[in-house]
Every structure is written in structure tokens, then in C-alpha cells.
């Protein structure tokens, strides 16, 4: 079936608009699109989106993470093997994390990472044929908020929810951050780590995030106010 931008699409649909745009210039095919000999095909069900000038992708529902380059993820260290750590990032296989890819780490000065630690890092390398590679420093050698996440609480959710709360248009973080202080790290692999001053506040943040998955912007705002007032009532 022929489809256009903002349509609901199913696998095997074709979009001629993209092919036409490709004739006059370069186009970027994002997730859910695939170029074959006879045109551009949809491979995931969802909504076909476009960002000007030339980026196309399919917004689809997904729970299982498939590693992709330069995404920030949260992983759990499962094994120490010589000079690398194996980190579970929720994909089909574990990612490797070199002990040298921490801020200030040298061969003499090893970072203190134990099995079971939660780390926040960036995917350096993620090809479907190779083991994914994770780093906890940026290109300047600075940690840039990455590294081992101390204490706190980690939970899993769908990949869509992560994209939703990280979207600047989503009011969730904006309305929560004024109510009480907390730290948060969101991994594109469907994991969220939060740390607040008390257990009650941590649970409140977690519930607010999970509750916003199917809520509209107005509903999210009123839910945040609700949670904040309940919390304030208990504290006083």
C-alpha cells in the first residue's frame, strides 16, 4: 500500500514521497524504514514521521532494546573479565566496557566498579554483527554525568516512555523538578534510575513516570500536582 507522512503504516507499505526526495538530494532513513531495490519499504508498524529537511522514520512501540550508536543507556555490570566489564543493557547480548573508559582512569588507577553496579554510559559502537561497546567518558575525556550510579533506584519501562519523557514538549520533568529535589538518569534502553531524599519521594517520582505512559500533557500536569499535594500532606 502507498502511504504518506503522518499516516499509520504497517510493514510492507511503500512511501513514494521518500523515493522522490531521494532523487533530488540525500535522505536519512531512520528506524522502521528500509531501502530495497524497488523502493523504500516500511518494516515496523506505527506512524511515519518526517523532520525537515530530509529525515524520515517510523514511530513505533517497542519494549526490547536493540543497541544503536551514540545512545545513552543504563546497564548493570554482570561480569569482570580482565580489563573489560560486561554490562547488561537489555539487548540480545551484553556490552563491553573497558576500565580505561572512565574519567581519570589509568592502568594504575583502576575505577572502583563492582559486579552489580549500575552504570550510565554511551554506546560507542553498536553493529548488529559485533558486541556493543560502552564508554563512560565523552570525547574530551570528561565524565559528563556518566559513570557508576550510586544508590538510587532503577526500574524498567517501554522504550516509548523514555522517548516521551525526554521530549522537550513533555511537561513531566518540568513539573516534577519544582516540587521536590531528585536526580534522574534515563537510558534509551528502557531503564530509568532515580534518586531522591527519601524512599517516599523516590516512589512518587517512579509512579509519576510510569503513570505518564498513556497520559496526555494535561493529564500529566494534573497528576504531578496530585502526587505533590499527597506527598506534601504526608511530610507535614
Amino acid at each position, binding site marked *: 500500500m502507498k502511504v504518506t507522512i503522518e499516516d499509520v503504516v504497517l510493514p510492507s507499505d511503500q512511501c513514494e514521497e521518500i523515493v522522490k526526495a531521494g532523487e533530488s538530494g540525500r535522505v536519512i532513513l531512520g528506524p522502521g524504514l528500509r531501502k530495497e531495490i524497488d523502493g523504500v519499504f516500511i518494516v*515496523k508498524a506505527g506512524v511515519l514521521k518526517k523532520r525537515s529537511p530530509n529525515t524520515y522514520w517510523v514511530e513505533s512501540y517497542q519494549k526490547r532494546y536493540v543497541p544503536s550508536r551514540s545512545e545513552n543507556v543504563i546497564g548493570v555490570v554482570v561480569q569482570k573479565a580482565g580489563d573489560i566489564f560486561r554490562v547488561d543493557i537489555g539487548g540480545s547480548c551484553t556490552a563491553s566496557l573497558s576500565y580505561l573508559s572512565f574519567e581519570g582512569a589509568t592502568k594504575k588507577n583502576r575505577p572502583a566498579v563492582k559486579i552489580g553496579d549500575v552504570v550510565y554510559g554511551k554506546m560507542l559502537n553498536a553493529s*548488529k554483527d559485533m558486541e556493543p561497546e560502552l564508554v563512560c567518558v565523552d570525547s574530551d575525556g570528561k565524565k559528563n554525568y556518566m559513570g557508576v550510579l550510586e544508590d538510587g533506584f532503577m526500574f524498567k519501562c517501554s522504550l516509548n516512555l523514555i522517548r516521551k519523557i525526554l521530549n522537550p514538549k513533555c511537561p513531566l520533568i518540568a513539573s516534577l523538578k519544582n516540587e521536590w529535589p531528585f536526580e534522574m538518569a534515563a537510558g534509551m534502553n528502557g531503564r530509568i534510575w532515580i534518586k531522591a531524599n527519601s524512599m517516599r519521594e523516590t516512589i512518587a517520582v517512579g509512579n509519576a513516570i510510569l503513570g505518564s505512559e498513556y497520559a496526555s500533557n494535561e493529564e500529566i500536569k494534573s497528576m504531578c500536582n496530585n502526587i505533590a499535594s499527597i506527598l506534601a500532606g504526608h511530610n507535614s
Partner: protein
Amino acid sequence: MDVDESQLKDFKLKPMKCEFNVLSKSDGSAILSQGETVVIVSVNGPLDIKMQSQSIEKATLEVLCCSKGGKPCVADRYKENIIKQTCDAALLSNQYPRTGITITVQELEDCGGLLPCSLNCACLALINSGLAMRCVFAAVTCVVDEQGDIVLGPSKEQLDTARAVLNFVFDSRDKSLMTGFTEGSFSEDTYKEAMERCRVASDLVFAFYRDIVKQYSKIIA
């Protein structure tokens, strides 16, 4: 191929109802009822699997069918094989090399047409899981009754008394036949006519898929 035009337009399939994401822990799940037959399917993957069963070029597909009684039998193996081969053709499994994809099918209620219902439900669960697919597929059943007429979307009584039961699975790309399995005796012409009529009826199933995705795309996008 001469098929009566009016017969191609005048048909009805059993009413379908579906719900996505019924299981919280699996990567994709769907429950589908076609008439009184109800099936629940869960998809997990791509996951890490044993070295022996890994394939360098593509994902290894595993299908498990559980009947209501819970005892595995030879008939389940037959169903697993058909679902596996159909899903293998529909999935772009070369996108996930050295991994495993598990599809679990649980029968909840069997009032005839369990296998086509399982196939459609498996397709919906794959859509929900967000795995890359070459196409979606639709399974359609028809029977040849005692008078020799072809009936689409048969009831349980019609299935029991039928001279032959024909099942077809079509892909959405060019409506070509992906899988076909039959029971009973029929002529070649009957087979061809039944196939053409099921091909037209598969449009209804594809429209149903699109409708379901439309409903939940409002929430995800």
C-alpha cells in the same frame, strides 16, 4: 480463472477482536478472538541463545504451542512448524543475527479455526513487539460443504460436516500465497476458486490490522 464477481464481494469473516500488550513482561503480546476461538501470543526477542542454536546470518525462530489441556502432543508440533515457517518468511531475521526470537502461542478457547487464529494473533504480537518485518500476513479459512459450495469464515458445525477445509496465508506485499494447508478431498478448480476468494477476504484482515495499529498509534505517537 473464472470466479463469480458477486461472490467475491459478498462475504463475511468471523468477527475479530484484539488487544495488544496484554502481558506485561513479554516484549510483544496480543490476544485475538475470531468468532469464539481465542488465542494469546507472546513474542520475546531478540534474545541471547545457546551457541549451538545460533545462526551467523539470521535470528533463530522458536515457536511453542500450548493447548488448553497443557499436554504437548504431535498436533502441536504440526502447528508450531506452520507458524514457524510463516513467521520466518515474514520477519526480517537477518537484522538480528546470532539471536533468538521466541513465539509462544497459548490456546484459550478452540471453537474451530484455531490455527488460522493463532497465525493472525502471532502476526499481531510481532507487530506489537516492534521487530523488523518484511510484510504482515493474514490467514483465512474456507470450507467446501456437502453441496460443493465454498464457505468463508465457517462455523464449528460447518467445519465438522465439511468435505474439505482449506487454509491460506497471504502476505501483504503483493497478496501472494505464503502458506497453504488443506484437509479433505477437492478438485483443482475448487482449490483455485477458494484461493481467489480467500485472497480477496484477506483484505479484511489487513484492514483490521491497520485499524488496530491506528487505535494504539494515538497513544504512542
